């Protein structure tokens, strides 16, 4: 079964009197447990595609399926529920609620998901330990490095074991050592929990971790390579 399937997805923006084809008849299928890197030069359509898959943005045409459930025709509330239950998001930076500690940031989403308080706490503690933040649970985002903040965001994205994690340039603000650590964490989660990852990036180091590399240019898929 496929985790994500896009069929002929198009998205066009108008800028002045020019049409920009951010997604130009994109069709891809990503299997459960996939580890995919989406690479493109700036403006290539990576963010647009991730947003469409995550239901943050509605394509102009085409169909999108998550776990074989069609999502491009769901309403706002249904999409929010879908993201809450099935999809974890990691963005480039400044992902966290600044006034909440690392643990509280992770707990907040679980609270919205309806997880009981004591269970929430123990899950948050163990996931933070898992991403290597044991001992830093009570720090606020401002008291952590960029890499540590990004790990909190990852912890928050994966704590409820979503089937799919969408990451948009998660390493853009990190140095190469921290980037490697984050990618190793992703790889480990992918192997141990069979979590599907789709990572948009133009960082070659990041791409080297992927099992599959999809290259885009001007809204079109131009290459699709399986990597060892």
């Amino acid at each position, binding site marked *: 079964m496929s985790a994500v399937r896009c069929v002929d997805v198009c998205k066009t923006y108008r800028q002045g009197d020019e049409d920009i084809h951010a997604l130009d008849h994109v069709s891809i299928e990503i299997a459960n447990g996939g580890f995919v890197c989406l690479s493109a030069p700036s403006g290539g359509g990576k963010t647009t595609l991730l947003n469409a898959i995550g239901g943050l943005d509605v394509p102009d045409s085409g169909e999108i399926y998550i776990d074989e459930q069609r999502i491009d025709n769901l309403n706002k509330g249904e999409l929010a529920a879908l993201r809450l239950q099935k999809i974890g998001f990691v*963005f480039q930076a400044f992902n966290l609620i600044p006034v909440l500690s690392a643990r509280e940031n992770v707990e907040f989403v679980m609270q919205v998901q309806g997880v009981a308080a004591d269970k929430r706490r123990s899950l948050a503690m163990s996931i933070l330990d898992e991403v290597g933040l044991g001992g830093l649970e009570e720090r606020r985002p401002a008291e952590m490095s960029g890499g540590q903040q990004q790990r909190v965001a990852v912890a928050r994205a994966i704590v409820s074991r979503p089937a799919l994690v969408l990451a948009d340039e998660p390493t853009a603000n990190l140095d190469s050592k921290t980037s490697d650590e984050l990618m190793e964490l992703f790889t480990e989660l992918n192997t141990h929990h069979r979590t599907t990852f789709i990572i948009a990036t133009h960082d070659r180091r990041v791409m080297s971790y992927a099992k599959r590399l999809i290259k885009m240019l001007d809204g079109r898929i131009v290459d699709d390579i399986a990597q060892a």
Partner: protein
Amino acid sequence: MILTLRLAWRNLWRHARRTWLTIGAMVFSNVLLVFMISFQFSVYDLMINNSLRAFSGHMQVQAPGYIDDGSMRQTVAEIVPLASRLRQDFPDADIAARASGFVLASSEQRSYGIAVYGVEPAFEPSASSIPGLVTDGRFVESGDEVIIGTVLARNLRVSVGDELTMLGSGRDGSFAAAVMTIVGIFDSGIPDLDRSIAEIPLATFQEVFYMRGSGHQIVINAPTIDSASDYRQRIRALLPDDLELHDWTALQPGLKQAITADLSSSFFVYGVLVILVAFSVLNTGLMSVLERTREFGILMALGIAPGRLGRLVLLETALMGAIGILLGALLGGILTAYFGVTGFVVPGMEEMAVRFNLPARLYPGISVVTLFAGPFVVFLVSILATLYPAFRLNRLQPVEAMRAA
């Protein structure tokens, strides 16, 4: 829930100065509201009590129609026994029977039309403040004794010991006349009373005006104005059906109108005050939502519904409002209590003071209502003002929100 509360609380202190300014606006208006409302209601209580206690009482038993026509023939039969029966049933209330009529009162030099009241010398002093306000001479006891107000005495150029001739008509329409001796002169401070009434013993009145045991009104004062409506119900149940029992709003419509007019003008002022607070809260709410656009966008991307974020914003206002209520009621209560001890002279209230027999220095009292009514309204209006920024979150698109700086 605790986590949401914690989040809301910490969000407030991201901009501590702005939050304090908003809370400050709430506290300021709450203190004013507590003081002004406490003060106002104390004045109303005084107005009601003093002007009712002076003469008309909290309520009166009358014959049907008497309140409108005031005709001598609209009588309460056997009024003295009825009053004494009520006195037995309600020992805590002050009860006195009266009869009244209009006469031409003449001294040697002048004549004036006045209202003359027959009163029970033994009970009138507890039902009305006039007997206690006799500044010259004494109150009536029996026989052909009369007391009049200072203004009337001056107008008639009479003093204690002089004679006063009264000409009028009796209950059956026949001519009634009496020569009375002035035994006292009262000074109630209420111009209407001091100028135009006289009191004589009820028995004398009944004789002179051919009343045959009847009278016109039984004045009843409950122990306090607050217990008056309770007493009124119980007394009503005991009275024969052919008698009416009027409360003070019917007896003194002017008093009620004065209070209503004063209330509506002050509620206008309160309204303006509350609206100013509402705008301050609205401004804070809009700013706090705007500056968190990106943060809210990310939370929405994580699947958190806009409604939940809206509730967070409302909770933030509710927390500020709660601090506003606490500090406002506390400081307002202290301020009011202070003036409750030292007293307070209100500039511009002289006219009302004279008309409703108020002291120059007023001592406001506090009740739960006057302490919390204003702050509670401010709280509610603040929540209402936050509904707009909260609902605006529904229009937020996660993609655009995350793009925001």
